[in-house]
């Protein structure tokens, strides 16, 4: 069905349709030089359909044709997604570069999966069995994973397998099964299928309570503000506080099967860093390149804004797809504020009544719906899979009172607030240990982390008091608490991302070290003078700091451990 453009304003096109129009379906604006610009219907008024165009609208004219389609904005799912670098609409960027060169040309689209790659297929069910959506028909190896080929998720009846392919190498376009429904209609199944990005993909027996800790190997997160598989968390912080670095470290070390990086409206340079470094980095747990477990969705700030809005949904859908195979997926979105701003821009162009700071009134529900796509599922075959979502937030002026941060805080399970003061003081990761929180239970006994946190809080109070009354006006006991809080911060919560050992601390080591740290924090040190207290804490801090740099179970590690133990046994004497 076709329509005609009647108005163009920024990235919004209004078209007059002469037939049925589906909300959120896609359309192509035909520019007179032949380019077809992908767009999405976002509002219908009478015969007028408002479309957001995923490209620059330069050159479009009133009267130009719009081709309306029935399908919604979708991504293609199948083997070969891992290791890909996509734009927000699932166009593989390296292939685009090979075809067009330095620039991204409007109207150039490439299918998300290679049609040439041949995958060695093994069937999982014989012909004659009855299957429903999401049931496994067979599998192909994809890097380190077994990629299950499922009955397409949108097929909502019971089907009989008429025919299934022999083991062999097939492309994603080759038929691998023939299904027949109860009315006798036959369907040809390939290894790829489409799914609309804005509809959550969660075929499961039930949703589980997320409770398995997701170990990021960042001590302050795992020990103090844990994240769980299937949970959600957010990282708000002003510019320069280290949001992106934190996401990069997490993407390297997080103990999950698959990581999806959605660079949404951020700097291209940071994506380039990931692009160039990840293929070189070896995942210590698999011995393979990190790229083999990673998908990068890259819609940088200079790319068209509507595609930016779509990019987080694209990322979520790919994550959900691998969750359906019983894998644990982590989606890192950087930054959700840019996504919210994309909504604001489009809403402004549509002349909708604005909410706070001109964000649309539906901002909160959209943010909530996005984070709700995370979750741990018990799948139809009894296995479990999870999708964890971590989003950074870039609040205007670094002020957490703004709408995006507030709407996000309402719906996430953990809050890792970055502080400018900490990053200025070069205390990394700059997660504020006093303001941040998590509703999840991690690898450390909650009672213990509360005890450690109490000392941190009291130390902070003493420090504040000291700015008024000076060091001389503070009692030795209070002074010692402040020193202990510093020790906890410096030697445990802070971590050197550029040191091979300190950059990532496995769960077991964290538990062991945390116990030692807590013992020191609660150690009754008998000190008479402040200087004596300082010297003691300097000594123990030095031990722990060097311990952090020592690889597990080396001679160095054991030696320092003995020194720490004797310090504890002697109560510092």
């Amino acid at each position, binding site marked *: 069905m076709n329509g005609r453009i009647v108005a163009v*304003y920024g990235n919004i096109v209004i078209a007059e349709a002469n037939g049925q129009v589906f909300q959120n379906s896609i359309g192509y604006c035909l520019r007179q030089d032949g380019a077809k610009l992908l767009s999405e219907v976002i509002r219908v008024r009478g015969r007028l359909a408002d479309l957001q165009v995923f490209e620059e609208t330069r*050159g479009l004219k009133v009267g130009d044709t719009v081709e309306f389609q029935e399908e919604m904005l979708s991504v293609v799912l199948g083997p070969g997604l891992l290791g890909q670098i996509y734009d927000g609409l699932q166009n593989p960027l390296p292939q685009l570069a090979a075809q067009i060169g330095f620039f991204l040309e409007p109207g150039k689209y490439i299918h998300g999966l290679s049609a040439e790659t041949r995958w060695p297929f093994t069937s999982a069910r014989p012909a004659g069995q009855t299957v429903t959506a999401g049931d496994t028909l067979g599998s192909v190896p994809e890097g380190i994973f077994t990629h299950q080929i499922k009955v397409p998720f949108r097929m909502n009846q019971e089907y009989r397998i008429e025919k299934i392919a022999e083991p062999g190498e097939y492309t994603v376009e080759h038929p691998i099964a023939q299904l027949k429904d109860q009315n006798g209609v036959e369907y040809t199944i390939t290894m790829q299928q489409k799914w609309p990005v804005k509809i959550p993909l969660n075929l499961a027996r039930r949703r589980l309570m997320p409770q398995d800790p997701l170990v990021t190997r960042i001590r302050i997160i795992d020990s103090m503000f844990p994240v769980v598989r299937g949970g959600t968390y957010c990282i708000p912080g002003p510019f320069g506080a280290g949001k992106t670095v934190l996401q990069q470290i997490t993407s390297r070390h997080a103990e999950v099967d698959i990581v999806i990086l959605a660079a949404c409206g951020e700097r291209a340079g940071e994506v380039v860093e990931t692009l160039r470094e990840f293929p070189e980095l070896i995942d210590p747990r698999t011995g393979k390149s990190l790229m083999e477990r990673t998908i990068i969705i890259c819609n940088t700030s200079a790319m068209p804004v509507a595609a930016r809005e779509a990019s987080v949904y694209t990322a979520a859908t790919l994550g959900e797809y691998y969750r359906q195979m019983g894998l644990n997926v982590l989606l890192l979105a950087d930054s959700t504020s840019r996504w919210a701003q*994309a909504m*604001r*821009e489009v809403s402004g162009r549509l002349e909708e009544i604005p909410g706070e700071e001109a964000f649309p009134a539906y901002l909160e529900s959209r943010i909530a719906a996005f984070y709700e796509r995370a979750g741990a599922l018990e799948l139809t075959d009894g296995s479990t899979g999870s999708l964890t979502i971590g989003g950074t937030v*870039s609040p*205007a002026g*670094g002020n957490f009172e703004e709408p995006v941060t507030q709407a996000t805080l309402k719906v996430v399970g953990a809050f890792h607030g970055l502080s400018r003061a900490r990053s*200025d003081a070069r205390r990394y990761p700059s997660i504020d240990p006093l303001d941040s929180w998590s509703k999840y239970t991690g690898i450390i006994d909650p009672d213990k982390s509360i005890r450690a946190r109490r000392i941190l809080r009291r130390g902070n109070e003493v420090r504040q008091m000291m700015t008024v009354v000076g060091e001389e006006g503070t009692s030795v006991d209070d002074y010692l608490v402040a020193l202990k809080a510093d020790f906890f911060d410096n030697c445990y919560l802070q971590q050197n991302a550029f040191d091979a050992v300190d950059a990532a601390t496995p769960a077991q080591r964290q538990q062991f070290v945390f116990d030692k740290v807590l013992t020191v924090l609660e150690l009754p040190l008998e000190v008479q003078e402040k200087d004596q207290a300082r010297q003691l804490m300097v000594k123990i801090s030095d031990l722990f700091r060097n311990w952090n740099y020592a690889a597990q179970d080396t001679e160095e590690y054991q030696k320092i451990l003995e020194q720490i133990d004797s310090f504890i046994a002697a109560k510092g004497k």
Partner: protein
Amino acid sequence: MRKYYDEITRIAGNVITVTATGVGYDELAVISSKRGTSLAQVIRLEGDQVSLQVFAGTQGVSTEDRVQFLNSPMQVPFTDDLLGRVFDGACRPRDDRAILEENKVSIGSPTVNPVRRRMPDHMVHTGIPMIDIFNSLVESQKLPIFSVAGEPYNELLARVGLQANADIIILGGMGLRHDDYLKFRDAFEKGGVLGRTIMFIHTAADPVVECLLVPDLCLAVGEQYALQNKRVLVLLTDMTAFSDALKEISIIMEQIPSNRGYPGDLYTQLARRYEKAVDFDGAGSMTILACVTMPGDDVTHPVPDNTGYITEGQFYLRNGRIEPFGSLSRLKQQVNGKTRDDHRAIMDACIQLYALCRESREKRDMGFEMSPWDHKLLKYGSLFEKKIMELSVNIPLFEALDRCWNILAECFDPAETGIRRAVIDAHWPKK
């Protein structure tokens, strides 16, 4: 024979609406009125109603003036004749020389494919120790200078332009005072770089719409040179004036303002320009250094705030010096490990000691007693400020590093600096 349209139905601010058909979005038009002719750009199509922003402003435009559409977006000529020339925001010569018409390229080109960018690793030497040592500028970096009115930010920009060894220098002036423009021109002329400089200058007296085009013109030309394997340096001043021009147009277009009157797409508009900074994998590079004046010295103001989220660091220029705290070059790690083995050690030690000096000064100002250590720090602080921080200091990187060592040796014992033993042994000045 091109068609004219003469039914202007609305004139408001710098925007006119004309009844016309067959017009492309973003297309350019010429308006001929009694006051002369002006370019205008299509910013909205609605049925047969075409809204255009008029570059020269709408004063004196009548409802029966003639509008002629040019069937192309805004373009800029790209030839080597551009070098040494000065243009205004509508790309008209400002230097009484010939109008250039050859090899026109459209402004606002598509985004660079991220996989065709490379990791930047060439340092731009500026001769300013506060940049070279402490926050090295890297080729293809986009970096703003956050400052306030009255600070010598234009002088700083001109100096970087003169001393950076770029192949092509492009200056974009927005809302510039006329004498500032003349100062830039004189500085480039005296420095002998005018032959590889191109200037697009919008002065405060020019129509506001032309201000909006200046960055696009600069970046379109710069990009073409970068594609020809040139290393381009683009200097933009002042991006706050550009943002204010955006604000003005969006309010006239009845867009809903988001924050202090700025449009909701301020971030996108700024990012689309700054993100043009690039190091092509297989061609040249473009570096962007921009001035952002902070209204009321407030870094949370929407313009510096959005800029900070886009750019790769920032320099704070306060009291005629580049502030060592807060200033940051995110890309410095890519280059400062390869200059000289003591570069990073000096960078860290000098700043840490200067931070301690500030604490000692606070103590002194509050009337506390000064220890011998405090006295050392105070001495170090004043030497460091005079010999390194002053903007007038103009020495190459290695000389600046040596000078830092001399200052340290004059004030401290080696162990007090916190620098690793091996580095001290290699570099501590011999008496």
